[in-house]
């Protein structure tokens, strides 16, 4: 099997996997970074969202062969200690119910706020529309993005 060198959370990692292996499963099964979640496998729910080169990407549908040497950031690398303003906003608002989708929500929100630090309510809704929360903690997700924006701004 081919060998891939990838850059995850600032660390260079080497994995031997088939070229079609989605980044999601490389992170979870091979690198023990299980914060990134499996939800649908077809880029429809957002649970597997990571940052690649600063943009939010659905890792379940990204084959390892196409990652290259671009910097990958997962929920474990968003901050060292949960101090990223989006993580802090999630805590302040007490967003989670079951909590399973929240890493993906946080990764989507943080990439979005990087590009649009003072979004309107409608812009938040559009940005977060791709992430499903089955517990429907949506009102708090929306609120937490607003709180994070105020922390960043």
């Amino acid at each position, binding site marked *: 099997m081919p060998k891939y060198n990838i850059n995850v959370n600032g660390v260079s990692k080497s994995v031997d996997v088939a070229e079609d292996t989605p980044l999601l499963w490389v992170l979870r099964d091979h690198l023990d970074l299980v914060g990134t979640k499996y939800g649908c496998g077809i880029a429809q729910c957002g649970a597997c969202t990571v940052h690649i080169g600063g943009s939010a990407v659905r890792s379940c549908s990204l084959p390892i062969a196409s990652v290259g040497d671009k910097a990958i950031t997962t929920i474990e690398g968003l901050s060292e200690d949960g101090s990223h303003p989006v993580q802090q906003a999630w805590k302040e608002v007490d967003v989670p*119910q*079951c909590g399973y989708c929240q890493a993906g929500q946080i990764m989507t929100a943080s990439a979005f706020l990087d590009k649009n630090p003072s979004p309107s309510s409608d812009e938040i809704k559009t940005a977060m529309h791709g992430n499903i929360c089955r*517990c429907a903690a949506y009102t708090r997700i929306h609120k937490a993005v607003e709180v994070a924006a105020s922390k960043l701004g």
Partner: protein
Amino acid sequence: MSTSSITFSRRSFIRTSSLASGGLLIGFNLFTACKPKVQPPVDISKLNFNDFNAFIKIADNGAVTIFSPNPEIGQGVKTAMPMLIAEELDVAWNNVYVQQGILDTENYTRQLAGGSQSIRLGWEPLRQTGATARQMLVNAAAARWGVDPSECSTSEGVITNAKGETLGYGDVVKEAATMEVPEGVTLKDPKNFKIIGTDAKNVDIDKIITGKPLFGLDYKAEGMVYASVLRPPAFGKVLESYDDTDAKAMPGVLDVIKIGDKIKQLTKEGKGNWTVNMGQSDKVVVIAKSTWEALKGKEAIKAKWVDGTPLESTQMQDKKLLDLLDGKEFKTMRKDGDIKKAFAQADNILERTYESPFLPHNCMEPMNFFANITADKIHLVGPVQTPEFAATAVADMLGRDVEQVHLEMTRMGGGFGRRLYGDFVYEVAEIADAIKKPVKLVFSREDDMNAGTYRPAIKYRIKAAVKDGEVTAYQLKEAAVNGNMYGLIPNFFPAGCIENYQVDVAHYKSNITTGAWRAPYTNFLAFAEQSFFDELAETMGVDRIQLRLDLLQKAKGSTDERMQYSPERMEKVIKTAVEKSGWGKQPDGIYQGFAAYYCHNSHVAEVANVELENGVPVVKKVTCVVDCGIVVNPLGAINQIEGGVIDGVGHAMYGELTFADGKPQSENYDTYRLIRMREVPKVETHLIQNELAPTGLGEPTLPPAGAAVANALKAATGNRFTQQPFSKFPELMKVPAKPIIG
């Protein structure tokens, strides 16, 4: 202080022990007494959740650890149940460390998550336990000071005597551990609560936001392999043969095996809570080094399936259910008066039929479980709402002693009823038993949606008689799949409000597996009933709120012991919702719909506001009023309430699983629609303040949401929605052009 009304002796469910490592360990049973001779362990690593299902540890330094007993599926009990203990123990909440009371244990637990009952049933025993522990600490301090315990008071883990001397809990745990468990401790007056009723954040919040391993899918063990199961492609199909040549040649694939014998035997014996009829067929399992390789390997299996039992379609199910409603074969669940006579004498009769589809649960964390089965131990780890059932069934299935089962619960990525069923635990156990390796069974999303225990399609037909402006008869007929409403539901509103009242049910047996889904039966019954009352008010030409209030008047002072709801509490949530939602006082362009419902011991009223966006009606806001007694953790409670309302709106609007030739017609989120951010209404919550014991909250706000929306859509469009999901009827969403005046 008020003495608790609880009658059983505290001796019967609390035991204490000195920990070898220092400190006091209190073991207790929530719902059952301890065996007379068992004692809590002296070593914290030996916590035995078979004899005690929850523990409190008070360390020498005063630190308090509460081992929370119940499975956490997102409903917040891992936070709220320990709050009840901490309140009466009188410690500061921020000094309390909460652990899921199961990890690294010697045995399995007896707790389950279901029916919104954790807080209601734990309300007395958990507070009793905290109060008993507090009294023992006080008694120990009083003995050291040589004073009477009644001269001592406590606050935030510190005991103070009349002279103002103080001792921390940690200072006296050693003595406390040797003392008699006191009788007759008193519980706090709710007015003096310091923790109950305050906002406590999710105890796992730091782990969740940093992506720590918490869930079943995150669990790993040394030497663990992964399993993916190829199940029948349709309900009714069974495996005839398969070719695994290609699969075995796939990278990472270690083995391909067939399972089914053991599970089929279990099904035959009716053991466990096995409801997955796919258990009639053998299944093919791919064992691989990684999840992806297991999932890919499965795609390479060439299997031949043959028809075992009839393959159902949605059209066929609809016809069967309507035939049941039209037929005469019913079981009568409740009968008051004589509906026949009342219908014969009626001035007016209204009859309507309401129809709902199958729904998958769609937990965000797909079903999964870990098993490692050795000669002397059955080690199971993962997300399951009914750990005891699962453990017993696995032991039965493998012909082993249940004492060998070690089941660890993980946090669950949603439950909604799906994880009440242990099918995935039995599957992984059969796999692990065959391959003799630690193994993790992983469902793909497609597996999860197509091997479900679905909310079954249900149809209701409601008929009411009106005579001289009064509702004189009410008949509810239910036609469902595989089973009918159970227990107390026939005694919910409007039972007791209408003299002639009857509930009749019928079902047919399907090979499609069905089960509990958030607020079983009531999740659609509330829609039917509360839509019907709106329509009934329109037919009678009376105010829709007043009709409900007038009916409730008749139930007041009822001596009928079957009555489940309180007319007074229902009246209060209705009136509060009217006031808080600005009912009837909205500007043009805002259309409101009302619904009120009682279930899971809680009373809820909701008002949906619909507005037009580009000519299309959109749910913009839901006002939700809840009476669930004392709210233990308002921050968590409001999250549950909002989630329940939005879940209810979402499934009423979009949720539907159809079948063709036994095969579910959606298998992933590209063809199955769940509510998303842009479709979410604002939810405004109002909690009724009282000092009544807490009741359920995980489910009760979901059922009325669909009716509130349907009633608002009627106001906006003039059209009545009687079938879910509403999105299936775009023609009814059209708003009529206003007539041109002049």
